């Protein structure tokens, strides 16, 4: 078998890396389309059609990153997978119901009679919201090491709002990039509002994070590495401030640099994600289960790695291809 020379430790690290990549790509990609769903205005038909059009060709593939992430967790770290999903049974169920509702509303709203369209629009908005809140809540509980006491619940609720704000923010940035005119102007307003909430959320979650785990506190505050690591939050808030400035200037820039807010949002996601990664490595469940405790049989991991090495670059390549094909302002969705 190929990769015979890779030890279980190396394989564990490779798979945690792949898992990280899948989660990050999911958060960014499905993040913006969930965010667009959260921002869905109840009463403006034109906005709604244009917003759907901006995410129409992408959402199916975006959601597949979640399937890959949960798949890798299941394949490489089965024990962590069952522990996480059993503790988070109800939030996971609500997330799935949300995903079902929003996913089908996409298609139903375009095909049903005009009179029942508003019903599916409502399903789309609140399905998206249910999904983002559940995901944030799950992230929060996971960070606490799957605790279920009242403090952990409080933290998870905060994370639920934080994640929703983050998704709404990147969703608004996506709309700035993909739409024009009135809707784009509205997207600027949304992005500005979300920016404040997001900055507050990141600050609060980071601070509480330090209180939750002594190991994390030691790493960030007491170790020599801490100083280097501090560049992450500094860079993060620097970017948020920059984004605020960009959002002020852009409306007068006549279409130039419309990609900037989305790019900044992307970087902010990467930085936040990196901070989580650094804080909790080598744990799969913080404080509870390490990569090596949970990693599955090396032979199975080697077998799948052969495929992953060949296929993942292909997936990334044709994903880029699709984004290039649909580059520029989104058009009215039509099947031909």
């Amino acid at each position, binding site marked *: 078998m190929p990769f015979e020379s890779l030890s279980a430790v190396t394989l564990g690290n490779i798979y945690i890396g792949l898992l990280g990549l899948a989660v990050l790509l999911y958060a960014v990609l499905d993040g913006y389309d969930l965010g667009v769903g959260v921002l869905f205005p109840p009463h403006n038909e034109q906005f709604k059609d244009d917003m759907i059009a901006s995410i*129409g*060709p*992408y959402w*199916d*593939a975006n*959601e*597949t990153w*979640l*399937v*890959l992430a*949960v*798949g*890798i*967790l*299941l*394949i*490489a770290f*089965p*024990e962590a*997978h*069952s522990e*996480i*999903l*059993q503790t988070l*049974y*109800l939030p996971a*169920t609500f997330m*799935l*119901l949300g*995903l*079902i509702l929003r*996913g*089908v509303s*996409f*298609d*139903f709203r375009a*095909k*049903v009679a005009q009179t029942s369209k508003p019903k599916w629009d409502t399903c789309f908005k609140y399905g998206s919201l249910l999904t983002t809140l559940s995901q944030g809540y799950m992230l929060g509980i996971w960070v606490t090491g799957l605790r279920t006491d009242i403090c952990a619940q409080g933290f998870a609720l905060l994370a639920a709002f934080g994640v929703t704000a983050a998704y709404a923010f990147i969703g608004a940035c996506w709309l700035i990039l993909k739409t024009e005119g009135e809707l784009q102007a509205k997207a600027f307003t949304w992005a500005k509002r979300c920016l404040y909430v997001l900055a507050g959320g990141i600050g609060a979650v980071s601070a509480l994070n330090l209180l939750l785990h002594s190991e994390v506190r030691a790493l960030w505050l007491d170790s020599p590495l801490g100083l280097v690591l501090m560049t992450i939050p500094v860079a993060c808030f620097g970017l948020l401030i920059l984004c605020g400035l960009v959002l002020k200037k852009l409306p007068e820039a006549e279409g130039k640099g419309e990609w900037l807010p989305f790019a900044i949002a992307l970087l902010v996601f990467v930085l936040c994600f990196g901070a989580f990664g650094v804080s909790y490595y080598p744990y799969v469940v913080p404080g509870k289960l390490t990569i090596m405790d949970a990693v*599955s*049989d090396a*032979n*199975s*991991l080697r*077998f*799948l790695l052969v*495929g*992953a090495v060949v*296929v*993942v670059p292909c*997936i990334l390549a*044709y*994903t880029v291809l*699709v984004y290039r*094909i*649909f580059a520029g302002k989104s*058009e009215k*969705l*039509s*099947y*031909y």
Partner: protein
Amino acid sequence: MDVFLLSRLQFALNISFHILFPTITMALGWFLFYFKFRSNLSGHPVWMRIYRFWVRVFALTFALGVVSGVTMSFQFGTNWPGFMEKAGNVAGPLLGYEVLTAFFLEATFLGIMLFGMRRVPNWLHTLATLVVAVGTTLSAFWILSLNSWMQTPQGHEVVDGIIYAKDWSAIIFNPSFPYRFTHMMLASGLTASFLIAGLSAYRLSIGDDKIAPKLALKTATYTAAVLIPLQIFAGDLHGLNTLEHQPQKVAAMEGVWETEKGAPLLLFAIPDEASRDNHFEIGIPNLASFILTHDTAGEIKGLNEFAGEHPPVAPVFYSFRVMVGMGMLMLFSAWLGAFYLYRQGALPDWLSKVFIGMSFSGWVATLAGWYVTEVGRQPYLVSGVLATKDAVTSLPPANIALSFSLYLVIYAVLLVAYVHTLRLMCRKSVGIEEIARDDPETPSRNKMDVATK
């Protein structure tokens, strides 16, 4: 109710709802490629009109398949943690390959297929249609490989209760896999054919007098007429394979309680698990033995040889009859339909009604078939290796009761909405003028139009 029963019910509900949609899209993807191919070849606009109608059906069906599939991917961890902890070394990589090689392919190229026609050259759009069809087939390949391995496991070893993979090609190409894959692909072909035929017949019946539904009806009916005998043949081979590897399942399918020679083929009976025999048997003498052993006096092992190790009889027994009955109905209607369409170019009124009624007949047969094979595997999750009850979660039953009820409600609503929306799409299509739809902007967008004329 206990956790075990609730988890089984929830899994059955999720997978039953999920399979409805891939069963359509797997074959509908190939139909779409065929329509697109014919359009490229002939340049006749009617093929593109058929394509446009059915690509919308595909989009809706695919969306339902995706969202219910995401739910499936969570079920293993939430309700059956023992499955992944004990069989994960085999099941994990197969699921992983499904996601990597199939899911991304179909989901990504779907975007081009649905919305990219104006943005990409025609060849790329045709290619995207092909890639989506290949993607759906690939995902069937991996998931059926895993399911077949659970039925007829090989290529693994068990150490301390944990399953380890030894030989991947033996695992992937396990004994029941070729049969199950063929059987399922044909089932998908029939489901899509009857859906296309049924909805096209419906469109004609409400006064849609265009060429497109007539041509779609013909294409689908002829396809069904060819596929159904193949399916009966493949099903028979699959049955023989099951007899070899899972005789207890066949005994339950045939309702054979005691090992017997010259077993009758039971057309009807009420199996009684308590008294371990059948009531009200109506059978054809010796026929079951003849079908299964090709000898009228052949011996069929009875359920008595598998005490405590065989599936519940009644659900397997009834489901099998529903599947076979539906298959027979498909055979007669498809052949009659093909006969009339070939001879007279149209269906008689009564047969048209039969076709409309059978629009979703593929669902009934497919579900019944899956119940036979899945219930027939009980009490095991992985035949002879891992018992179903050893894999279940230890969550409080109330949690599962809640999620189960929520799924039940949402799935019921979605199923009604789906069927209703298909009907509405048919009705809307009536009002669309044939000529107006022929893409006035670029009359010969297909370069091949010119070339073939």
